[in-house]
């Protein structure tokens, strides 16, 4: 700790930080542009000038940039100094020479860092009355608008997009007053994290395009703290609603999970909530049409399904409460897993490992701290995107070490990058094809899945002789190198997942266990990815032997008569014939879901379920972190949370309590519920901002009488602008706001220090207890080898398309491809296949597009099932591809962004 004096007041600060960061941590207001809490300082904008004095006798002082000056012990500075103030106001005046001042039509307006800083620095009268330079804007794809005239040249966009997120197609171009930030030509922004530009750019250059279609000011959006349901990371979000439709999603800071950033699936994948595919009324099938169910009929249905002979199939995309309610309704022994049998196997391994003392499941923030990483067979960018962004930061730890050695502070971003050049902490990727993280990989091995499993075991054995031995002779040298890197690391990390069966998970666990033995029993970071928002929650609830296959067999054989399917399309989980025979044989099928699916088409009764933004719920992420997601808005029609249809619980808190005491593994779930303190003087937390406009007039076109505000009897939040603002309690704060700070940068007012935890905040509750000491897994028997025309199969996933619900969102659809097989040029040639051809795959005969990629292992076929109704469960290990006469659709694979797409020779 160091002591510094700011305008005569003494503060205790961390000398490893810079003055700007410390001023903000202390709650002071100091304008800035180019600095960003996650990206450090470059001193480009000159907005953060303060006066620094040599000592107490120095009355003159000199101007320094706060973001470029360390907060060293004894520093004396002034923010209020007249010269510093006028410097700051002059700087902003010159930055804004060509700014169009089009706030009324700018979508940033009202949450604009430039507006805030302009006000704060006192440049409130425009003197420049000459011509402004103007730019031509670019088409940047379905996610982002471009309005370059608003740019103030702070360089944050390229520093985020290129340096932080590893993008390659956005650059700073030209020079002096026509510096331009864009692509080399119009086109879709390639990065999977492009949406963060909206929040990183302090002006309205990059704005949310989907939001533009139905725009509302920030203060007119009703919002609540929510959790992304796009994958198992569980990033924290703040969705905004107006006039009954969900308008946009922005990031919500959680220091342990997503920090400041989301992926584009999470940000742009929500508008199925507003779509026509939504189920909004309870219906029964009568002669193949749906007929509205009356209340007493619903009661009768529930009664019928409560009888002996009913089984329930849970859902990895439904909340803990809904899964638990179903489990309670049908009984433990009749509650079955709602994912594929292969995933059941993987999940069994994941859950066993979760309680093992040898391992630690790292949060996203902890992943950033790893100094040697091995990714075994998982395509992280497409399965758990936010984690890929964190891995990009982990490889910079080497640079940070080098900087410390050279006594360069870590926040000196440009200096640290310059010093390190291409030096990175080792990241090794073992996978069946190239990936989007290859550019930061020290080693990359492309192999068939069985060979990757063998290689994983080989690495484990090289780290510790007590791990079972396996050989893969061609890769002995790399295996040796990777083993040494992991052994030598302070914080090694192994990443694997359930995308391609449990053997890779087991091999990864053996590597981590070997490190654990080698490393004097410290718990080793083992990050196991699962596909869906609540895969873990449902996995904990379903007994291991109650797999989906068993449930379907029970129905087909008549052992079970009725089935309740919770928020699930079984056709994505099991072979079509298997699901068909089960549902055809069942006497009655009750499906609860949000949208129409192949499974709802088979239902006798459908009960409509609210979407993630329409109910309060808890989910458990990949690391066992339980998080609470509040209701943002009401469903306008008759959909309800699934648990409400099937249980008599009055309140989600009741279910959480029961779940805590009855379901093993959930004991700490109640920790995520808000305590009593938000109810100050009996008042709730408003979902609407204090500036929410038009409340009395919003529905005047329908009725001029002002209706009573909708009451929320259950939640601590209200559908109103009255109450005790969430700003008093960041644990239930969706969108930060502080006096003078209307943009998302106001978050620093709520962190205990910059980049720290939220004051009184809640990062979720970790459910897994470390109770077991396991042992090594055996090396599996040699997998079946391809014969004849067969190829090894590796399931492949896409950030835009593999998640069932976001794949129905319009902006995401624009980025999706058809189902495809990815094969190398030799395998394509020997089958007479050309780029873009249509082929059929055995055993299903489903048509897929041929995608020839030079970075796929020869002898392996990647299969991306997309939204084409191909169930991955149809396939085991091997695949055959036959040329088909069919024509490719117009969508095809043209929007696929991979580095190894085979092109014609130049």
């Amino acid at each position, binding site marked *: 700790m160091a002591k510094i004096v700011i305008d005569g007041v003494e503060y205790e600060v961390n000398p490893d930080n810079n003055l700007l960061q410390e001023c903000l941590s202390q709650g002071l207001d100091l304008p800035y542009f180019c600095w960003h809490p996650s990206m450090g300082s470059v001193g480009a904008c000159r907005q953060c000038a303060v006066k620094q004095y040599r000592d107490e006798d120095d009355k003159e002082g000199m101007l320094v940039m706060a973001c470029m000056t360390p907060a060293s012990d004894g520093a004396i500075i002034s923010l209020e100094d007249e010269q510093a103030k006028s410097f700051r106001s002059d700087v902003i005046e010159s930055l804004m020479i060509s700014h169009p001042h089009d706030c009324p039509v700018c979508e940033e307006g009202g949450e604009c860092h430039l507006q805030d800083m302009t006000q704060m620095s006192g440049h409130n009268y425009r003197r420049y009355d000459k011509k402004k330079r103007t730019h031509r804007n670019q088409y940047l794809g379905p996610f982002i608008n471009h309005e370059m005239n608003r740019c103030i040249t702070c360089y944050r966009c390229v520093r985020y997009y290129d340096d932080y997120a590893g993008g390659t197609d956005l650059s700073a171009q030209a*020079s002096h007053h026509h510096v331009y930030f864009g692509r080399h030509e119009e*086109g879709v922004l390639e990065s999977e994290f492009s949406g963060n530009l909206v929040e990183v750019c302090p002006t309205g250059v990059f704005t949310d395009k989907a939001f533009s279609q139905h725009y509302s000011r920030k203060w007119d959006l009703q919002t609540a703290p929510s959790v992304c349901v796009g994958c198992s990371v569980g990033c924290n979000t703040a969705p905004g609603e107006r006039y009954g439709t969900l308008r946009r999603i922005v990031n919500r800071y959680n220091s342990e999970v997503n920090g400041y950033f989301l992926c584009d699936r999470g940000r742009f994948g929500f508008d199925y909530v507003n779509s026509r595919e939504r189920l909004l009324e309870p219906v029964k099938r009568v002669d193949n049409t749906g007929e509205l169910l009356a209340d007493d009929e619903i009661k009768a249905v529930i009664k019928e399904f409560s009888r002996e002979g009913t089984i329930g199939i849970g859902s990895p995309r439904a909340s803990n409460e809904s899964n638990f309610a179903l489990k309670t309704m049908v009984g433990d022994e009749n509650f079955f897993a709602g994912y594929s049998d292969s995933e059941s196997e993987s999940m069994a391994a994941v859950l066993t490992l979760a309680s093992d003392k040898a391992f630690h499941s790292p949060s996203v923030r902890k992943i950033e701290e790893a100094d040697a990483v091995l990714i075994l067979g998982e395509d992280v960018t497409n399965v758990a995107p936010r984690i890929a962004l964190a891995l990009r930061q982990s490889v910079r730890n080497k640079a940070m070490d080098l900087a410390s050695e050279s006594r360069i502070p870590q926040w000196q971003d440009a200096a640290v990058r310059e010093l390190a050049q291409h030096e990175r902490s080792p990241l090794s990727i073992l996978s069946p094809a190239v990936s989007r993280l290859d550019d930061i990989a020290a080693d990359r091995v492309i192999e068939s899945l069985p060979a990757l499993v063998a290689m994983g075991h080989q690495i484990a054995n090289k780290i510790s002789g007590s791990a079972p031995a396996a050989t893969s002779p061609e890769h002995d040298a790399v295996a040796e190198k990777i083993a040494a890197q992991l052994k030598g690391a302070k914080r090694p990390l192994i990443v694997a997942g359930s995308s391609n069966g449990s053997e890779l998970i087991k091999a990864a666990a053996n590597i981590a266990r070997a490190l654990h033995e080698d490393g004097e029993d410290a718990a080793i970071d083992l990050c196991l990815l699962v596909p869906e928002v609540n895969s873990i929650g449902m996995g904990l609830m379903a007994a291991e032997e109650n797999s989906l296959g068993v449930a379907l067999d029970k129905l087909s054989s008549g052992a079970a008569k009725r089935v309740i399917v919770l928020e699930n399309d079984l056709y994505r989980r099991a072979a079509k014939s298997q699901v068909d025979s089960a549902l055809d044989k069942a006497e009655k099928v009750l499906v609860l879901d949000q949208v129409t699916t192949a499974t709802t088409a088979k239902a006798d009764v459908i009960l409509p379920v609210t979407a993630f933004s329409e109910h309060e719920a808890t989910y458990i992420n990949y690391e066992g972190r339980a998080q609470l997601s509040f209701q943002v808005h009401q469903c306008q029609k008759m959909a309800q949370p699934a648990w409400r249809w099937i249980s008599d619980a009055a309140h989600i808190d009741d279910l959480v309590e029961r779940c805590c005491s009855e379901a093993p593994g959930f004991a700490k779930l109640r920790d995520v519920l808000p305590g009593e303190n938000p109810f100050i003087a009996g008042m709730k937390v408003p979902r609407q901002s204090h500036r929410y406009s038009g409340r009395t007039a919003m529905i005047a076109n329908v009725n001029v009488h002002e209706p009573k505000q909708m009451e929320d009897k259950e939640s601590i939040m209200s559908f109103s602008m009255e109450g005790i603002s969430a700003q008093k309690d960041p644990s239930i704060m969706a969108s930060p706001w502080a006096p003078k700070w209307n943009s998302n940068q106001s978050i620093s007012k709520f962190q205990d220090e910059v980049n720290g935890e939220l004051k009184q905040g809640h990062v979720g509750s970790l459910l897994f207890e470390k109770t077991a000491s396991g042992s090594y897994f055996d090396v599996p028997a040699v997998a079946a080898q391809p014969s004849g025309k067969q190829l090894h199969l590796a399931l492949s996933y896409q950030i835009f398309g593999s998640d069932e619900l976001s794949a129905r969102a319009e902006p995401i659809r624009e980025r999706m491809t058809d189902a495809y097989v990815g094969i190398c040029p030799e395998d394509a040639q020997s089958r007479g296949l050309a780029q873009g051809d249509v082929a059929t795959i055995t055993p299903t005969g489903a048509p897929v597009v041929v995608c020839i990629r030079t970075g796929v292992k020869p002898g392996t076929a990647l299969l991306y099932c997309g939204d084409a109704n191909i169930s991955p469960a149809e396939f085991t290990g091997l695949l055959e591809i036959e040329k088909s006469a069919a024509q490719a659709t117009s969508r095809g694979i043209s929007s696929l962004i991979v580095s190894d797409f085979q092109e014609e020779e130049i």
Partner: protein
Amino acid sequence: MSQRVIASTAKKARKLSAEEIAEIEHEMTLYPDKKAVGLEALKIVQKSQGWVSDESLLGIAKYLDIPVADLEGVATFFNLVYREPVGKNVILFCDSVSCWIMGCESVKGHIKQQLDIDYGQTTEDGDFTLIPVPCLGDCDRAPVMMVGPDLHRNLTPEKIDSIISDYKNKQG
């Protein structure tokens, strides 16, 4: 095989010529990092092609395995890297302080009139392109300009006429 996406575009890269490649390869021996060769490669291609087309830009990016957006950043930063076709002779006309004091305005007016082009334009016959530069470092003999590789000093409207016709004749 590249480890990153170099460019997603419908345009096709131009295959660099053997001579261009030889020169670029030589530059690569002088720098520790391929990215650093970008500017030299642009100059090499401009020397052989007269300017840097989108196709050439792509060709260089692919050859050096650097993102085309980064290379475009370099290309557009320097105003002497031409991203549009230029005439056979590029006139770099200084209109900075010393030349201005010495009356470059009237010289410039004369050039514009004679060639019927303004800054940034090329004559219809493709012979000349006129571009302003801030200072050619020869202020004591202002006004000055360069035509192609040659420096011309102490300019007057009369001198301009003979310079223009010289270059026209040179080309035959």
